[in-house]
């Protein structure tokens, strides 16, 4: 990319010549026109038609005729035998799966082009300020070379639910655990019949205790290797005069000889366990964390009986990350993959527009003391409006037709939650639905939805001065 692509390249910009292609001047019907000249003219005309013929034949048979055929076919039922009028079009809004696809398409068309244009604009402006802009553009443009299938595989990998395998969830879980420490004992459970009742999912509670008593809370189900490294030998603490004391420990000694419900010499405390004292009114009166030897002390309790509670949070399973490809997030997740592919496009096109902005206007604004944000909002964006519109419309057309990415990324069970117009059309017509009437109607709808963009494109082309 040694020069900004997009607007300056004469190769591709649909610009028209100043003098226009010639409409060969209609020759005056010279009565005396020599026969050979007339023959030459006819030959030229024939030749012109012959040059255009292969293209016109292919376009007629494989593009124009199918449009007519599909419109006709959409008025017949699934098997094609019975004329049903507009029934297939009404069916689109009755069939829940198709309706879902229509809704998803609407989300796509609103969200993706807006995000892409915005992102492209911001990145294009920012890259103007760095020296390695070309390298940056290259990196972001790279995914445009990649097939949607490959992009789909790339993102199926990245969105993998298991944080040990999917890079996105690895990051999410890492960030999550940095702020919210994971529960230390997801597998632990209280030894039964030793004073604690409940279940890991609800937490455990003891019977009523008066201040000054000492509680021994035995747990099992923690593999010796899973005991935190800092844990020391469990011990029974001194009683606290106006509170409750106790120890939470792993009631299992490596080797033999441990007695159930008794703190034996080689048994370890379970540090970091939260223990609460719950008053008769059910309110938490005090809360503490166990020390390295498993002991805890809940001071400052008034008279009365208290229950000790070991809340469920101690045993919560680790945070598993986000279910990216679940029914709720699958569409945003696929849109994310789409952004990865297309941001480079929007950035490079907008960047080319940016490079073509009149420098003196920007300089003048800077001299007048405008700051960067003001320049961006008041000058850059308005001047770029035509380019932004082109990018936006182009993206709308492309987003409307998105197929591969949705088809590839959405796992089978959530395919229906992810469907858009194009994938639904495919499934209805060929993927088991076998309703070619409805399928044709969907493809016609797709065409109709792109028509406004087509009108815009043709207008732009004609305004360009074709004649």
């Amino acid at each position, binding site marked *: *990319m040694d020069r900004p*692509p*997009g607007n300056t*390249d*004469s*190769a591709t910009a649909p*610009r*028209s*010549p100043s003098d*226009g*292609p010639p*409409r060969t001047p209609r020759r005056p019907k010279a009565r005396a026109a020599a026969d050979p000249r007339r023959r030459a003219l006819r030959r*030229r*005309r024939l030749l*012109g*038609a012959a*040059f*255009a013929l*292969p*293209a*016109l034949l*292919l*376009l007629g*048979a*494989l*593009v*124009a005729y*199918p449009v007519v*055929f599909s419109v006709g076919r959409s008025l017949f039922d699934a098997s094609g035998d019975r004329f049903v009028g507009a029934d297939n079009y009404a069916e689109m809004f009755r069939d829940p799966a198709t309706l879902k696809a229509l809704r998803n398409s609407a989300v796509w068309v609103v969200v993706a082009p807006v995000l892409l244009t915005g992102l492209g604009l911001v*990145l294009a402006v*920012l890259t103007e*300020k*760095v020296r390695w802009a070309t390298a940056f553009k290259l*990196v972001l*443009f*790279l995914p445009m*070379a*990649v*097939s*949607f299938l*490959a992009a*789909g595989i*790339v993102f199926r*990998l990245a969105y*993998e639910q298991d944080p*040990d395998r999917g*890079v996105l969830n690895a990051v999410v879980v890492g960030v999550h655990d940095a702020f919210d420490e994971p529960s230390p004992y997801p597998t632990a459970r209280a030894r039964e019949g030793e004073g604690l009742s409940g279940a890991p999912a609800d937490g455990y509670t003891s019977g009523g205790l008066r201040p000054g008593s000492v509680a021994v809370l035995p747990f099992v189900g923690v593999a010796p290797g899973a005991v935190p490294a800092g844990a020391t030998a469990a011990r029974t603490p001194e009683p606290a005069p106006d509170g409750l004391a106790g120890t939470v420990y792993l009631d299992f000694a490596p080797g033999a000889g441990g007695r159930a419900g008794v703190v034996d010499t080689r048994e370890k405390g379970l540090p970091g366990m939260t223990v609460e004292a719950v008053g008769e009114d059910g309110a938490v009166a005090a809360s503490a964390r166990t020390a390295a030897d498993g002991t805890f002390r809940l001071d400052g309790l008034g008279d009365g009986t208290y229950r000790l509670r070991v809340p469920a949070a101690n045993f919560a399973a680790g945070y598993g990350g986000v279910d990216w490809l679940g029914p709720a997030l699958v569409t945003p997740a696929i849109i994310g993959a789409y952004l990865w592919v297309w941001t480079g*496009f929007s950035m490079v*096109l907008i960047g080319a527009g940016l490079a073509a902005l009149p420098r003196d206007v920007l300089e003048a604004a800077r001299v007048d003391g405008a700051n960067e944000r003001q320049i961006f909002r008041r000058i850059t964006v308005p001047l770029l409006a035509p380019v932004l519109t082109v990018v936006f419309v*182009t993206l709308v*057309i492309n987003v409307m*037709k998105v197929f591969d990415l949705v*088809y*590839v990324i959405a*796992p089978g069970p959530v395919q229906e939650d992810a469907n858009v117009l194009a994938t639904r059309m*495919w499934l209805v*017509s060929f993927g088991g639905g076998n309703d070619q009437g409805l399928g044709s109607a969907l*493809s016609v709808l797709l065409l109709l939805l792109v028509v406004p963009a087509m009108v815009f*494109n*043709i207008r732009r082309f004609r305004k360009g001065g074709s004649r």
Partner: protein
Amino acid sequence: MRTTKVTRWLGSSAVQALLVLVALVWVTPLAGLLLSSLRSERDNAADGWWTSVTEPSQLSFDNYRALLDDSGLVQAFWNTVLISVPTTVLVVGVAALAGYAFAWLEFPGRDWLFLVVVGLLVVPVQIGLLPVAKLFGAVGLFGTVAGVVLFHVAYGLPFGVFLLRNFFAEIPREMLEAARIDGGGEWRIFRRLVLPLGRPALASLAIFQFLWVWNDMLVALLFADGESQPLTVALQSQMRQFGSNIGVLAPGAFLSLVVPLVVFFAFQKHFVQGVMAGSVK
């Protein structure tokens, strides 16, 4: 004055840091694919590809070797070539002829027909699937490489004709008339004058078209059968057991990427122009 300098410096390094971060985010998925493709099935099932950054001994070409032994996938790779190369040649050739005719030759209904061609630009591929499938079924093209090629050519033409006609129209009239006066036939002028002058546009069109077809899945999904399916379709059918066969999918996807990436780096300028221009589709 100094404070503005400092803030500017801080601002610019913040921008730099942000852009580096964005670039990293963009590269990571591809790096993940590459590393996954070099790890054994067992390693991929056990943990993420990033562990192999610290344990490079996990990496090997075994998956690729297995892939090259899989005759189905190798065949699919060749099918991709057999589909994309002829399509590209045909689109460029047919569109160049028509583009020249629309720009410089006279024939009845020329301007009207050209507008129709421009209008066909936005006909989505989807609308052609069913009718053309029936058509091909009737003439025995369904499920063949030739059928896939023809379909792609037809749907590549509106843009090709549009692009080349506009480009050829800029050739100075004097040049063409001089050639005509010299007695060159239209065919000769087309070959000796128009095609060489149009090279930049032809290159952009060829690259865009090639990538479009190379990367296509939808058309081949319908029109190709097991024998003629390209790599994208062959890999897609492996996706059903995603997770259990990353060892095939990741190297396969990477193999399908290599050619576009080579094209990308070899023809950066034309590539970007081609994609940009083709985006009106």
